[in-house]
């Protein structure tokens, strides 16, 4: 795919506004904002009340969603990171579609805890529009979070059942 110079930055900004609108309408999401600023949006960040967001009781009272999409040069699909962050437990669980771990395929699920990566698992690549891909990842979050378990105050992520 041939991109026009600069074109994708405008598409990306439009896309981030759509994501901002989508999360603003989501139950349990509040204080939706852009980072580093609304003048140069790169990531959409929402404060999350997990119980309202997931529709069921959750151990932690506050979490955060961080969503970023971008169009790398020389790659014919979109890169993204869709992260569920729990500052209190220093935990991050995110879908990452980027160039970081090609051995896991084009998209992987990453669990970070206490400043280090605990595990990475390959997940299916979605050949979809960014908003449709985000939609599927948001829908998958509850079941992914339900696979988290804790032992000796350390998290682990059970493999996805077939």
């Amino acid at each position, binding site marked *: *795919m041939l*991109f*026009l110079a*600069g*074109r*994708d*930055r*405008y*598409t990306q*900004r*439009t*896309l981030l506004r*759509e994501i901002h*609108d*989508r999360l603003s*309408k*989501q*139950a349990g999401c509040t204080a939706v904002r852009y980072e*580093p*600023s*609304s*003048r*140069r949006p*790169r990531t959409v960040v929402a404060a999350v009340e997990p119980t309202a*967001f*997931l*529709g*069921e009781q959750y151990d932690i009272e506050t979490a955060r969603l961080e969503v970023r999409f*971008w*169009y*790398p040069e020389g790659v014919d699909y*979109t890169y993204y990171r869709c992260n569920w962050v729990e500052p209190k437990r220093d935990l991050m669980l995110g879908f990452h579609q980027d*160039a*970081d771990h090609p051995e896991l395929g084009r998209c992987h699920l990453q669990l970070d805890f206490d400043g280090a990566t605990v595990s990475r698992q390959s*997940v*299916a690549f979605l050949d*979809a*529009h*960014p*908003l*449709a891909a985000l*939609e*599927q990842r*948001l*829908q*998958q*979050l*509850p*079941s992914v979070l*339900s696979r988290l378990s804790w032992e000796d105050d350390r998290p682990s992520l059970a493999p*996805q059942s077939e």
Partner: protein
Amino acid sequence: MADDHIGGVQSWTETMSARERIRSVALTLSEPRSTNWISEQAETAWSTTNQELDDLVDRGQLRQVDAGESTLYQPDYTRLLFDELRRLVEEHTREELQAELTTIAEEIEDWQEAYDVETWEELEQSLADDTLSSSDIRERRDVVQDWQATEEDRRLIRHALELYSDIEATRERMLDAADRATS
């Protein structure tokens, strides 16, 4: 993984109308796509999608691309650019835009100092350095992407500031003309 949805998170079909989803998908396409593809992605009926795409073409937001026997759609990218400039001018003061340029300059200076390079191209070239660990490479790759995006933002904000001056100058000329007419 589509079947592992266990409920809780609202679907966009609950939070947005079909026409809203079509607009959202169509106006953020990075390549020309067909009505079929857009309706599939937006989870909308073909007829509704076709009608909404035609409306967006009529309003100048989408452009049609002839691809053999089929018609594809893509956003009017020039319009996206001007919409961005207009949004920056309308939603931010000159001071805010100038402050953002200062922040950008500081960020770039920090990267230049941290990696001992002048440009993101130089930093990108350093990725071939065999002595870097995989985590160093990932970190540098992230910085290259941020740096590129930051430079594109800087260009856009500078354009917006130039537009700001033109708008202010035009307003002043109008006020001067009005003063002369009434004095």
